[in-house]
Protein backbone atom coordinates (compact mmCIF):
# COMPACT_ATOMS: atom_id res chain seq x y z
CA UNK A 1 0.00 0.00 0.00
CA UNK A 2 1.66 3.21 -1.11
CA UNK A 3 -1.02 5.84 -1.90
CA UNK A 4 -2.24 8.63 0.33
CA UNK A 5 -5.35 6.53 0.84
CA UNK A 6 -5.57 2.82 0.32
CA UNK A 7 -8.83 0.98 0.85
CA UNK A 8 -9.27 -2.71 0.27
CA UNK A 9 -12.62 -4.48 0.42
CA UNK A 10 -13.79 -1.89 2.94
CA UNK A 11 -17.28 -2.44 4.31
CA UNK A 12 -19.35 -0.65 6.90
CA UNK A 13 -22.85 -1.42 8.09
CA UNK A 14 -25.18 0.77 10.15
CA UNK A 15 -27.33 -1.98 11.60
CA UNK A 16 -28.96 -3.42 8.51
CA UNK A 17 -28.08 -0.43 6.31
CA UNK A 18 -24.98 -0.82 4.20
CA UNK A 19 -22.73 2.28 4.21
CA UNK A 20 -19.82 0.84 2.25
CA UNK A 21 -19.81 -2.44 0.40
CA UNK A 22 -16.38 -3.85 -0.34
CA UNK A 23 -14.97 -0.49 -1.44
CA UNK A 24 -11.52 -0.81 -2.98
CA UNK A 25 -9.55 2.17 -4.26
CA UNK A 26 -6.20 3.89 -4.09
CA UNK A 27 -5.97 7.70 -3.97
CA UNK A 28 -2.66 9.22 -4.97
CA UNK A 29 -1.13 12.60 -4.22
CA UNK A 30 -2.66 15.93 -5.23
CA UNK A 31 -6.40 16.39 -5.47
CA UNK A 32 -8.73 13.42 -5.73
CA UNK A 33 -12.47 13.82 -6.15
CA UNK A 34 -14.82 11.30 -4.68
CA UNK A 35 -17.96 11.60 -6.75
CA UNK A 36 -21.26 9.93 -6.07
CA UNK A 37 -24.90 10.67 -5.43
CA UNK A 38 -26.24 11.32 -1.94
CA UNK A 39 -26.19 8.13 0.12
CA UNK A 40 -23.44 6.57 -2.02
CA UNK A 41 -21.09 6.18 0.96
CA UNK A 42 -18.84 9.23 0.56
CA UNK A 43 -19.26 10.51 4.13
CA UNK A 44 -18.91 6.98 5.49
CA UNK A 45 -15.60 6.57 3.68
CA UNK A 46 -14.36 9.90 5.01
CA UNK A 47 -15.40 9.05 8.57
CA UNK A 48 -13.44 5.81 8.23
CA UNK A 49 -10.44 7.78 6.96
CA UNK A 50 -10.44 10.19 9.87
CA UNK A 51 -10.88 7.38 12.37
CA UNK A 52 -14.37 8.26 13.52
CA UNK A 53 -15.88 5.03 12.22
CA UNK A 54 -14.43 1.55 12.49
CA UNK A 55 -14.69 -0.71 9.48
CA UNK A 56 -16.66 -3.91 9.81
CA UNK A 57 -14.60 -5.60 7.12
CA UNK A 58 -11.59 -4.83 4.97
CA UNK A 59 -8.70 -2.49 5.49
CA UNK A 60 -8.07 1.23 5.16
CA UNK A 61 -4.83 3.21 5.40
CA UNK A 62 -4.33 6.96 5.41
CA UNK A 63 -0.73 8.09 4.92
CA UNK A 64 0.19 4.47 5.54
CA UNK A 65 -1.47 4.27 8.95
CA UNK A 66 -4.64 2.74 10.35
CA UNK A 67 -6.80 5.78 11.26
CA UNK A 68 -8.99 4.18 13.96
CA UNK A 69 -8.13 5.68 17.38
CA UNK A 70 -4.91 7.03 15.87
CA UNK A 71 -4.51 10.33 17.72
CA UNK A 72 -1.07 11.32 16.31
CA UNK A 73 -2.38 10.88 12.75
CA UNK A 74 -5.00 13.56 13.41
CA UNK A 75 -2.28 16.21 13.59
CA UNK A 76 -1.62 15.52 9.90
CA UNK A 77 -5.26 15.86 8.85
CA UNK A 78 -7.60 18.70 8.12
CA UNK A 79 -11.23 17.67 8.05
CA UNK A 80 -14.14 19.70 6.80
CA UNK A 81 -17.41 17.98 7.75
CA UNK A 82 -20.54 18.17 5.66
CA UNK A 83 -22.65 19.17 8.65
CA UNK A 84 -23.29 22.89 8.95
CA UNK A 85 -24.94 23.48 12.30
CA UNK A 86 -21.97 23.22 14.65
CA UNK A 87 -21.29 25.96 17.24
CA UNK A 88 -23.46 28.61 15.61
CA UNK A 89 -23.03 30.86 18.65
CA UNK A 90 -19.29 31.25 18.02
CA UNK A 91 -17.76 33.88 15.80
CA UNK A 92 -15.69 32.53 12.91
CA UNK A 93 -12.54 33.74 14.62
CA UNK A 94 -13.41 31.95 17.86
CA UNK A 95 -14.42 28.83 15.91
CA UNK A 96 -11.09 28.51 14.12
CA UNK A 97 -9.09 29.59 17.18
CA UNK A 98 -10.81 26.99 19.36
CA UNK A 99 -10.00 24.19 16.95
CA UNK A 100 -6.42 25.39 16.64
CA UNK A 101 -6.12 25.37 20.43
CA UNK A 102 -7.36 21.78 20.35
CA UNK A 103 -4.44 21.06 18.05
CA UNK A 104 -2.13 22.39 20.73
CA UNK A 105 -1.28 25.81 19.35
CA UNK A 106 -0.49 28.52 21.90
CA UNK A 107 -3.15 31.23 22.15
CA UNK A 108 -1.18 33.89 20.28
CA UNK A 109 -0.31 31.50 17.44
CA UNK A 110 -3.89 30.32 17.24
CA UNK A 111 -5.11 33.89 16.91
CA UNK A 112 -2.62 34.65 14.13
CA UNK A 113 -3.26 31.41 12.27
CA UNK A 114 -7.03 31.82 12.56
CA UNK A 115 -6.84 35.29 11.06
CA UNK A 116 -4.64 34.00 8.23
CA UNK A 117 -6.92 31.07 7.49
CA UNK A 118 -10.02 33.27 7.47
CA UNK A 119 -8.28 35.67 5.13
CA UNK A 120 -7.36 32.74 2.92
CA UNK A 121 -11.03 31.81 2.48
CA UNK A 122 -12.19 35.41 2.15
CA UNK A 123 -13.95 35.81 5.49
CA UNK A 124 -11.87 38.58 7.05
CA UNK A 125 -14.69 41.11 6.95
CA UNK A 126 -17.17 38.72 8.56
CA UNK A 127 -14.78 37.05 11.00
CA UNK A 128 -16.33 38.58 14.11
CA UNK A 129 -19.88 37.59 13.29
CA UNK A 130 -21.47 34.50 14.88
CA UNK A 131 -21.56 31.53 12.52
CA UNK A 132 -25.32 31.27 12.86
CA UNK A 133 -25.62 34.57 10.96
CA UNK A 134 -23.54 33.20 8.07
CA UNK A 135 -24.98 31.99 4.80
CA UNK A 136 -24.42 28.34 4.01
CA UNK A 137 -21.59 29.21 1.67
CA UNK A 138 -19.87 31.31 4.31
CA UNK A 139 -20.10 28.47 6.79
CA UNK A 140 -18.49 26.21 4.20
CA UNK A 141 -15.60 28.64 4.00
CA UNK A 142 -15.32 28.86 7.79
CA UNK A 143 -15.15 25.08 7.95
CA UNK A 144 -12.49 25.05 5.26
CA UNK A 145 -10.54 27.65 7.25
CA UNK A 146 -10.47 25.46 10.36
CA UNK A 147 -9.41 22.47 8.29
CA UNK A 148 -6.51 24.38 6.74
CA UNK A 149 -5.39 26.55 9.62
CA UNK A 150 -3.14 24.08 11.46
CA UNK A 151 -1.16 23.17 8.32
CA UNK A 152 -2.21 19.59 7.66
CA UNK A 153 -0.71 17.23 5.09
CA UNK A 154 -4.08 15.93 3.95
CA UNK A 155 -7.34 17.79 3.58
CA UNK A 156 -10.51 15.72 3.70
CA UNK A 157 -13.42 17.82 2.49
CA UNK A 158 -16.95 16.49 2.63
CA UNK A 159 -19.09 18.35 0.07
CA UNK A 160 -17.24 21.66 0.58
CA UNK A 161 -19.07 23.40 -2.27
CA UNK A 162 -22.57 22.43 -1.25
CA UNK A 163 -24.70 25.58 -1.04
CA UNK A 164 -21.79 27.96 -1.68
CA UNK A 165 -22.44 31.14 -3.66
CA UNK A 166 -20.50 31.73 -6.92
CA UNK A 167 -17.82 33.93 -5.37
CA UNK A 168 -17.48 31.55 -2.45
CA UNK A 169 -16.98 28.66 -4.86
CA UNK A 170 -14.16 30.49 -6.55
CA UNK A 171 -12.55 31.14 -3.17
CA UNK A 172 -12.93 27.55 -2.07
CA UNK A 173 -11.67 26.01 -5.31
CA UNK A 174 -8.70 28.35 -5.51
CA UNK A 175 -7.82 27.69 -1.88
CA UNK A 176 -7.95 23.95 -2.45
CA UNK A 177 -5.88 24.21 -5.63
CA UNK A 178 -3.27 26.33 -3.92
CA UNK A 179 -3.05 23.89 -1.00
CA UNK A 180 -2.44 21.04 -3.46
CA UNK A 181 0.10 23.03 -5.48
CA UNK A 182 2.08 23.60 -2.30
CA UNK A 183 2.37 19.88 -1.71
CA UNK A 184 -0.80 19.03 0.20
CA UNK A 185 -3.09 16.13 -0.60
CA UNK A 186 -6.83 16.72 -0.96
CA UNK A 187 -9.71 14.28 -0.89
CA UNK A 188 -12.90 16.04 -1.76
CA UNK A 189 -16.36 14.59 -2.10
CA UNK A 190 -19.14 15.94 -4.22
CA UNK A 191 -22.24 14.73 -5.94
CA UNK A 192 -21.56 17.20 -8.77
CA UNK A 193 -18.86 16.02 -11.10
CA UNK A 194 -18.41 19.43 -12.73
CA UNK A 195 -17.44 21.04 -9.46
CA UNK A 196 -14.40 18.89 -9.10
CA UNK A 197 -13.53 18.82 -12.78
CA UNK A 198 -12.24 22.34 -12.51
CA UNK A 199 -9.46 21.43 -10.11
CA UNK A 200 -8.54 17.81 -10.82
CA UNK A 201 -8.85 15.02 -13.29
CA UNK A 202 -8.39 12.32 -10.66
CA UNK A 203 -11.73 11.02 -9.61
CA UNK A 204 -13.22 8.00 -7.92
CA UNK A 205 -16.85 7.25 -8.64
CA UNK A 206 -18.75 5.68 -5.79
CA UNK A 207 -22.26 4.27 -5.90
CA UNK A 208 -24.15 2.16 -3.38
CA UNK A 209 -21.02 1.86 -1.27
CA UNK A 210 -18.87 0.50 -4.06
CA UNK A 211 -16.14 2.14 -6.09
CA UNK A 212 -17.37 1.76 -9.67
CA UNK A 213 -14.70 3.68 -11.58
CA UNK A 214 -11.54 5.62 -10.92
CA UNK A 215 -8.91 7.53 -12.82
CA UNK A 216 -9.18 10.26 -15.45
CA UNK A 217 -12.65 11.71 -15.79
CA UNK A 218 -12.57 12.53 -19.51
CA UNK A 219 -13.55 8.99 -20.30
CA UNK A 220 -16.96 9.44 -18.76
CA UNK A 221 -17.49 13.05 -19.78
CA UNK A 222 -19.16 12.08 -23.03
CA UNK A 223 -21.59 9.90 -21.17
CA UNK A 224 -22.47 12.61 -18.73
CA UNK A 225 -22.92 15.33 -21.32
CA UNK A 226 -25.81 13.35 -22.80
CA UNK A 227 -27.77 14.15 -19.64
CA UNK A 228 -28.69 17.80 -19.02
CA UNK A 229 -27.27 18.87 -15.70
CA UNK A 230 -29.59 20.64 -13.25
CA UNK A 231 -28.43 23.55 -11.07
CA UNK A 232 -30.68 25.08 -8.42
CA UNK A 233 -29.94 28.77 -7.86
CA UNK A 234 -31.15 30.46 -4.67
CA UNK A 235 -31.94 34.11 -5.41
CA UNK A 236 -34.54 36.72 -4.46
CA UNK A 237 -34.50 37.83 -8.14
CA UNK A 238 -35.37 34.67 -10.07
CA UNK A 239 -36.76 36.54 -13.09
CA UNK A 240 -33.71 38.76 -13.47
CA UNK A 241 -31.35 35.80 -13.08
CA UNK A 242 -33.39 33.76 -15.57
CA UNK A 243 -33.22 36.60 -18.11
CA UNK A 244 -29.46 36.85 -17.71
CA UNK A 245 -28.94 33.10 -18.09
CA UNK A 246 -31.37 32.57 -20.94
CA UNK A 247 -28.78 33.86 -23.40
CA UNK A 248 -26.36 31.03 -22.66
CA UNK A 249 -26.28 28.62 -25.65
CA UNK A 250 -26.00 25.50 -23.55
CA UNK A 251 -28.94 26.25 -21.24
CA UNK A 252 -31.80 24.02 -22.37
CA UNK A 253 -34.43 24.85 -19.72
CA UNK A 254 -35.11 27.24 -16.86
CA UNK A 255 -37.78 26.55 -14.24
CA UNK A 256 -38.96 28.71 -11.33
CA UNK A 257 -40.27 26.25 -8.72
CA UNK A 258 -40.47 28.87 -5.93
CA UNK A 259 -40.34 32.65 -5.59
CA UNK A 260 -36.74 32.55 -4.36
CA UNK A 261 -35.14 29.96 -6.61
CA UNK A 262 -34.83 28.73 -10.13
CA UNK A 263 -33.56 25.52 -11.68
CA UNK A 264 -31.39 25.74 -14.77
CA UNK A 265 -30.72 22.71 -16.99
CA UNK A 266 -27.56 22.89 -19.07
CA UNK A 267 -25.78 20.56 -21.49
CA UNK A 268 -22.38 22.09 -20.69
CA UNK A 269 -22.12 22.31 -16.92
CA UNK A 270 -18.43 23.18 -16.96
CA UNK A 271 -19.08 26.20 -19.16
CA UNK A 272 -22.07 27.14 -17.03
CA UNK A 273 -20.08 27.11 -13.78
CA UNK A 274 -17.23 28.97 -15.47
CA UNK A 275 -19.39 31.74 -16.91
CA UNK A 276 -21.87 32.19 -14.08
CA UNK A 277 -19.69 34.34 -11.74
CA UNK A 278 -19.01 36.83 -14.56
CA UNK A 279 -22.71 37.07 -15.41
CA UNK A 280 -23.60 37.57 -11.73
CA UNK A 281 -21.07 40.37 -11.36
CA UNK A 282 -21.88 41.96 -14.72
CA UNK A 283 -25.64 42.09 -14.12
CA UNK A 284 -25.28 42.85 -10.38
CA UNK A 285 -27.44 39.84 -9.50
CA UNK A 286 -28.14 38.68 -5.96
CA UNK A 287 -27.27 34.97 -6.09
CA UNK A 288 -27.17 33.42 -2.63
CA UNK A 289 -26.37 29.80 -3.33
CA UNK A 290 -25.97 27.05 -5.87
CA UNK A 291 -26.97 23.47 -5.46
CA UNK A 292 -27.05 20.65 -7.90
CA UNK A 293 -29.83 18.12 -7.49
CA UNK A 294 -28.12 14.85 -8.22
CA UNK A 295 -30.73 13.39 -10.54
CA UNK A 296 -28.53 13.98 -13.59
CA UNK A 297 -25.62 12.19 -11.92
CA UNK A 298 -27.96 9.41 -10.84
CA UNK A 299 -28.82 8.85 -14.50
CA UNK A 300 -25.13 8.47 -15.33
CA UNK A 301 -24.57 6.09 -12.45
CA UNK A 302 -27.56 4.01 -13.50
CA UNK A 303 -25.97 3.81 -16.93
CA UNK A 304 -22.56 2.88 -15.54
CA UNK A 305 -23.79 0.19 -13.17
CA UNK A 306 -26.22 -1.21 -15.66
Amino acid sequence: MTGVVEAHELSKWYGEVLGLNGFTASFGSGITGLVGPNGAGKSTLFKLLIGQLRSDKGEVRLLGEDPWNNVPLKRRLGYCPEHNQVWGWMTATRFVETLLRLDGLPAADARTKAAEALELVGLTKAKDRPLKTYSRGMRQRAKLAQALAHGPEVLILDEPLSGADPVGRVHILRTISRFAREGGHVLMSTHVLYEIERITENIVLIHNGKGIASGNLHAIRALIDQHPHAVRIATPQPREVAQALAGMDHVVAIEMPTADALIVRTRQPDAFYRELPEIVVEHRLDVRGLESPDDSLEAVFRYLVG
Partner: protein
Amino acid sequence: MSISLPTYTRREGPLLGRGPRVRTIVVTGLRREFKRPAAIFAIGIGTAITTITAIVFVLLAPFFLQGQPLDLTFFYLPASNLAILFFVTLMASVVGAGLIADDLDSMALTLYLSRPITPADYLIAKAAILAPLVSMISVLPLFITPLLGLLLGLFPWDIALAAMGLSIVVGLVLTAFYTSIALFLSSLTRRKSYAAAGMFAVTFGLWIPAQVFASPGALDNPSLLYIAPWEDFLAVARGAYGVSSGPIDWPLALAILLAATVLAALATYLRMRAVEVVTG
Protein backbone atom coordinates in the same frame (compact mmCIF):
# COMPACT_ATOMS: atom_id res chain seq x y z
CA MET B 1 -13.54 39.11 -11.74
CA SER B 2 -10.25 38.81 -9.91
CA ILE B 3 -9.67 37.38 -6.47
CA SER B 4 -6.23 37.44 -4.91
CA LEU B 5 -5.38 35.08 -2.10
CA PRO B 6 -2.61 35.16 0.48
CA THR B 7 -0.07 32.37 0.43
CA TYR B 8 -0.83 29.24 2.37
CA THR B 9 1.95 28.24 4.78
CA ARG B 10 2.35 24.89 6.47
CA ARG B 11 2.84 25.19 10.20
CA GLU B 12 5.94 23.85 11.82
CA GLY B 13 6.59 24.46 15.48
CA PRO B 14 6.17 23.10 18.99
CA LEU B 15 2.67 22.26 20.08
CA LEU B 16 1.27 22.48 23.59
CA GLY B 17 0.42 19.37 25.59
CA ARG B 18 -2.72 17.84 26.86
CA GLY B 19 -3.59 20.38 29.57
CA PRO B 20 -4.20 23.38 27.31
CA ARG B 21 -6.22 21.25 24.88
CA VAL B 22 -8.44 20.00 27.70
CA ARG B 23 -8.82 23.56 28.97
CA THR B 24 -9.98 24.62 25.53
CA ILE B 25 -12.85 22.12 25.67
CA VAL B 26 -13.70 23.28 29.20
CA VAL B 27 -13.74 26.95 28.21
CA THR B 28 -15.80 26.21 25.11
CA GLY B 29 -18.29 24.21 27.18
CA LEU B 30 -18.60 26.84 29.90
CA ARG B 31 -19.07 29.61 27.32
CA ARG B 32 -21.87 27.61 25.77
CA GLU B 33 -23.56 26.90 29.12
CA PHE B 34 -23.47 30.55 30.15
CA LYS B 35 -25.31 31.41 26.94
CA ARG B 36 -28.16 28.99 27.72
CA PRO B 37 -31.02 30.49 29.78
CA ALA B 38 -31.93 27.09 31.27
CA ALA B 39 -28.38 26.55 32.49
CA ILE B 40 -28.13 30.08 33.87
CA PHE B 41 -31.44 29.57 35.68
CA ALA B 42 -30.41 26.23 37.17
CA ILE B 43 -27.02 27.56 38.25
CA GLY B 44 -28.40 30.83 39.63
CA ILE B 45 -31.51 29.58 41.37
CA GLY B 46 -29.89 26.38 42.60
CA THR B 47 -26.91 28.14 44.11
CA ALA B 48 -29.00 30.95 45.58
CA ILE B 49 -31.65 28.78 47.23
CA THR B 50 -29.25 26.21 48.69
CA THR B 51 -26.87 28.91 49.93
CA ILE B 52 -29.62 31.07 51.41
CA THR B 53 -31.11 28.01 53.08
CA ALA B 54 -27.71 27.17 54.55
CA ILE B 55 -27.39 30.71 55.91
CA VAL B 56 -30.85 30.50 57.43
CA PHE B 57 -29.88 27.23 59.10
CA VAL B 58 -26.93 28.95 60.75
CA LEU B 59 -28.92 31.97 61.82
CA LEU B 60 -31.58 29.75 63.34
CA ALA B 61 -29.07 27.32 64.83
CA PRO B 62 -29.67 28.47 68.43
CA PHE B 63 -33.39 27.85 67.99
CA PHE B 64 -33.01 24.50 66.21
CA LEU B 65 -30.85 23.10 68.96
CA GLN B 66 -32.15 24.73 72.08
CA GLY B 67 -30.52 23.30 75.14
CA GLN B 68 -28.14 21.14 73.09
CA PRO B 69 -24.45 21.79 72.48
CA LEU B 70 -23.70 23.32 69.07
CA ASP B 71 -21.24 20.69 67.91
CA LEU B 72 -20.28 19.01 64.64
CA THR B 73 -23.55 17.11 64.43
CA PHE B 74 -25.37 20.36 63.71
CA PHE B 75 -23.87 20.43 60.23
CA TYR B 76 -25.76 17.31 59.23
CA LEU B 77 -28.85 19.54 59.14
CA PRO B 78 -27.80 21.67 56.12
CA ALA B 79 -26.30 18.60 54.44
CA SER B 80 -29.63 16.81 54.60
CA ASN B 81 -31.45 19.76 53.03
CA LEU B 82 -33.75 18.39 50.31
CA ALA B 83 -33.10 21.49 48.23
CA ILE B 84 -29.58 20.14 47.67
CA LEU B 85 -30.98 16.88 46.34
CA PHE B 86 -33.38 18.65 44.00
CA PHE B 87 -30.99 21.23 42.63
CA VAL B 88 -28.05 18.86 42.24
CA THR B 89 -30.35 16.64 40.18
CA LEU B 90 -31.60 19.67 38.24
CA MET B 91 -28.06 20.88 37.56
CA ALA B 92 -26.95 17.43 36.40
CA SER B 93 -30.03 17.28 34.17
CA VAL B 94 -29.89 20.75 32.67
CA VAL B 95 -26.14 20.99 32.21
CA GLY B 96 -24.74 17.46 32.44
CA ALA B 97 -27.31 15.67 30.32
CA GLY B 98 -26.38 17.67 27.24
CA LEU B 99 -22.62 17.68 27.61
CA ILE B 100 -22.04 14.65 25.40
CA ALA B 101 -25.53 14.16 23.94
CA ASP B 102 -25.51 17.62 22.37
CA ASP B 103 -22.08 17.01 20.84
CA LEU B 104 -23.35 13.76 19.38
CA ASP B 105 -26.50 15.42 18.08
CA SER B 106 -24.89 18.57 16.64
CA MET B 107 -21.91 16.64 15.26
CA ALA B 108 -19.59 18.83 17.33
CA LEU B 109 -18.03 15.54 18.41
CA THR B 110 -16.84 15.15 14.82
CA LEU B 111 -14.87 18.37 15.12
CA TYR B 112 -13.48 17.51 18.57
CA LEU B 113 -12.40 14.05 17.46
CA SER B 114 -10.90 15.32 14.22
CA ARG B 115 -8.24 16.91 16.44
CA PRO B 116 -5.59 15.14 18.49
CA ILE B 117 -7.96 14.62 21.39
CA THR B 118 -8.28 11.28 23.18
CA PRO B 119 -11.58 10.07 24.63
CA ALA B 120 -10.03 10.49 28.07
CA ASP B 121 -9.15 14.16 27.35
CA TYR B 122 -12.67 14.77 26.14
CA LEU B 123 -14.29 13.16 29.20
CA ILE B 124 -11.97 14.89 31.67
CA ALA B 125 -12.91 18.20 30.08
CA LYS B 126 -16.60 17.45 30.21
CA ALA B 127 -16.33 16.43 33.86
CA ALA B 128 -14.41 19.65 34.54
CA ILE B 129 -17.32 21.63 33.12
CA LEU B 130 -20.00 19.93 35.20
CA ALA B 131 -18.25 19.21 38.49
CA PRO B 132 -17.64 22.86 39.53
CA LEU B 133 -21.24 23.74 38.72
CA VAL B 134 -22.59 20.82 40.76
CA SER B 135 -20.18 21.77 43.55
CA MET B 136 -21.82 25.16 43.80
CA ILE B 137 -24.82 23.30 45.17
CA SER B 138 -23.27 20.26 46.81
CA VAL B 139 -20.19 21.86 48.41
CA LEU B 140 -20.65 25.62 48.64
CA PRO B 141 -23.68 25.69 50.98
CA LEU B 142 -22.15 23.05 53.25
CA PHE B 143 -18.92 25.02 53.38
CA ILE B 144 -20.62 28.36 53.99
CA THR B 145 -22.58 27.06 56.96
CA PRO B 146 -19.62 26.49 59.32
CA LEU B 147 -17.79 29.50 57.90
CA LEU B 148 -20.69 31.75 58.74
CA GLY B 149 -21.13 30.04 62.11
CA LEU B 150 -17.49 30.79 62.84
CA LEU B 151 -17.76 34.41 61.74
CA LEU B 152 -20.88 34.93 63.84
CA GLY B 153 -19.21 33.31 66.82
CA LEU B 154 -21.81 30.56 67.05
CA PHE B 155 -19.28 27.74 66.80
CA PRO B 156 -15.76 27.38 68.20
CA TRP B 157 -13.08 27.61 65.50
CA ASP B 158 -11.92 24.01 65.82
CA ILE B 159 -15.42 22.66 65.21
CA ALA B 160 -16.06 25.13 62.39
CA LEU B 161 -12.76 24.25 60.67
CA ALA B 162 -13.42 20.53 60.99
CA ALA B 163 -16.92 21.07 59.61
CA MET B 164 -15.55 23.04 56.66
CA GLY B 165 -13.10 20.26 55.79
CA LEU B 166 -15.73 17.57 56.16
CA SER B 167 -18.17 19.62 54.09
CA ILE B 168 -15.74 19.67 51.19
CA VAL B 169 -15.17 15.92 51.39
CA VAL B 170 -18.86 15.06 51.79
CA GLY B 171 -19.91 17.49 49.08
CA LEU B 172 -17.29 16.18 46.66
CA VAL B 173 -18.58 12.64 47.07
CA LEU B 174 -21.99 13.84 45.88
CA THR B 175 -20.40 15.96 43.13
CA ALA B 176 -18.36 13.04 41.81
CA PHE B 177 -21.37 10.74 41.81
CA TYR B 178 -23.67 13.12 39.94
CA THR B 179 -20.96 14.17 37.48
CA SER B 180 -20.10 10.61 36.64
CA ILE B 181 -23.71 9.44 36.29
CA ALA B 182 -24.71 12.50 34.23
CA LEU B 183 -21.85 11.96 31.76
CA PHE B 184 -22.63 8.27 31.53
CA LEU B 185 -26.29 8.91 30.73
CA SER B 186 -25.36 11.72 28.34
CA SER B 187 -23.03 9.41 26.42
CA LEU B 188 -25.81 6.92 25.79
CA THR B 189 -28.06 9.14 23.68
CA ARG B 190 -28.21 12.01 21.21
CA ARG B 191 -31.25 13.39 23.03
CA LYS B 192 -30.36 15.21 26.21
CA SER B 193 -33.97 15.03 27.37
CA TYR B 194 -33.56 11.26 27.73
CA ALA B 195 -30.40 11.70 29.76
CA ALA B 196 -32.09 14.38 31.89
CA ALA B 197 -35.03 12.07 32.55
CA GLY B 198 -32.50 9.41 33.49
CA MET B 199 -30.96 11.72 36.10
CA PHE B 200 -34.33 12.23 37.77
CA ALA B 201 -34.99 8.49 37.55
CA VAL B 202 -31.68 7.71 39.25
CA THR B 203 -32.45 10.20 42.03
CA PHE B 204 -36.15 10.07 42.69
CA GLY B 205 -36.95 6.80 40.91
CA LEU B 206 -34.71 5.02 43.40
CA TRP B 207 -35.23 7.20 46.45
CA ILE B 208 -39.04 7.21 46.63
CA PRO B 209 -39.53 3.43 46.14
CA ALA B 210 -36.67 2.75 48.57
CA GLN B 211 -38.38 4.94 51.18
CA VAL B 212 -41.72 3.27 50.61
CA PHE B 213 -40.52 -0.32 50.63
CA ALA B 214 -38.11 0.16 53.53
CA SER B 215 -40.81 1.61 55.78
CA PRO B 216 -42.26 -0.43 58.65
CA GLY B 217 -45.64 -0.51 56.91
CA ALA B 218 -44.14 -2.28 53.86
CA LEU B 219 -41.14 -4.62 53.86
CA ASP B 220 -39.65 -3.00 56.95
CA ASN B 221 -36.14 -3.53 55.60
CA PRO B 222 -33.86 -0.49 55.99
CA SER B 223 -31.21 -2.18 53.83
CA LEU B 224 -33.33 -1.25 50.81
CA LEU B 225 -32.30 2.35 51.40
CA TYR B 226 -28.82 1.49 50.11
CA ILE B 227 -30.17 1.53 46.55
CA ALA B 228 -31.03 5.24 46.86
CA PRO B 229 -28.00 7.53 46.22
CA TRP B 230 -29.51 10.25 48.40
CA GLU B 231 -29.89 7.87 51.37
CA ASP B 232 -26.29 6.74 50.83
CA PHE B 233 -25.19 10.37 50.83
CA LEU B 234 -27.13 11.06 54.03
CA ALA B 235 -25.48 8.06 55.66
CA VAL B 236 -22.05 9.34 54.62
CA ALA B 237 -22.93 12.80 55.98
CA ARG B 238 -24.09 11.26 59.26
CA GLY B 239 -20.81 9.37 59.51
CA ALA B 240 -18.78 12.47 58.71
CA TYR B 241 -20.53 14.78 61.16
CA GLY B 242 -20.77 12.17 63.90
CA VAL B 243 -24.54 11.70 63.95
CA SER B 244 -24.99 8.36 65.67
CA SER B 245 -28.39 7.08 64.66
CA GLY B 246 -29.36 6.18 61.12
CA PRO B 247 -31.11 3.43 59.20
CA ILE B 248 -28.02 2.41 57.17
CA ASP B 249 -24.28 2.28 57.85
CA TRP B 250 -22.04 4.93 56.32
CA PRO B 251 -19.07 2.73 55.28
CA LEU B 252 -21.19 0.55 53.02
CA ALA B 253 -23.13 3.59 51.76
CA LEU B 254 -19.85 5.33 50.90
CA ALA B 255 -18.57 2.20 49.17
CA ILE B 256 -21.76 2.03 47.09
CA LEU B 257 -21.54 5.68 46.07
CA LEU B 258 -17.87 5.44 45.15
CA ALA B 259 -18.32 2.15 43.30
CA ALA B 260 -21.21 3.60 41.29
CA THR B 261 -19.14 6.68 40.51
CA VAL B 262 -16.13 4.68 39.33
CA LEU B 263 -18.19 2.18 37.35
CA ALA B 264 -20.14 4.93 35.58
CA ALA B 265 -16.91 6.76 34.74
CA LEU B 266 -15.32 3.58 33.43
CA ALA B 267 -18.39 2.69 31.37
CA THR B 268 -18.45 6.21 29.89
CA TYR B 269 -14.78 5.99 29.00
CA LEU B 270 -15.20 2.62 27.32
CA ARG B 271 -18.27 3.92 25.49
CA MET B 272 -16.42 7.00 24.22
CA ARG B 273 -13.44 4.91 23.15
CA ALA B 274 -15.73 2.79 21.05
CA VAL B 275 -18.12 5.51 19.91
CA GLU B 276 -18.48 5.92 16.17
CA VAL B 277 -19.55 9.31 14.91
CA VAL B 278 -22.35 8.50 12.52
CA THR B 279 -23.59 11.31 10.33
CA GLY B 280 -27.06 12.20 11.48
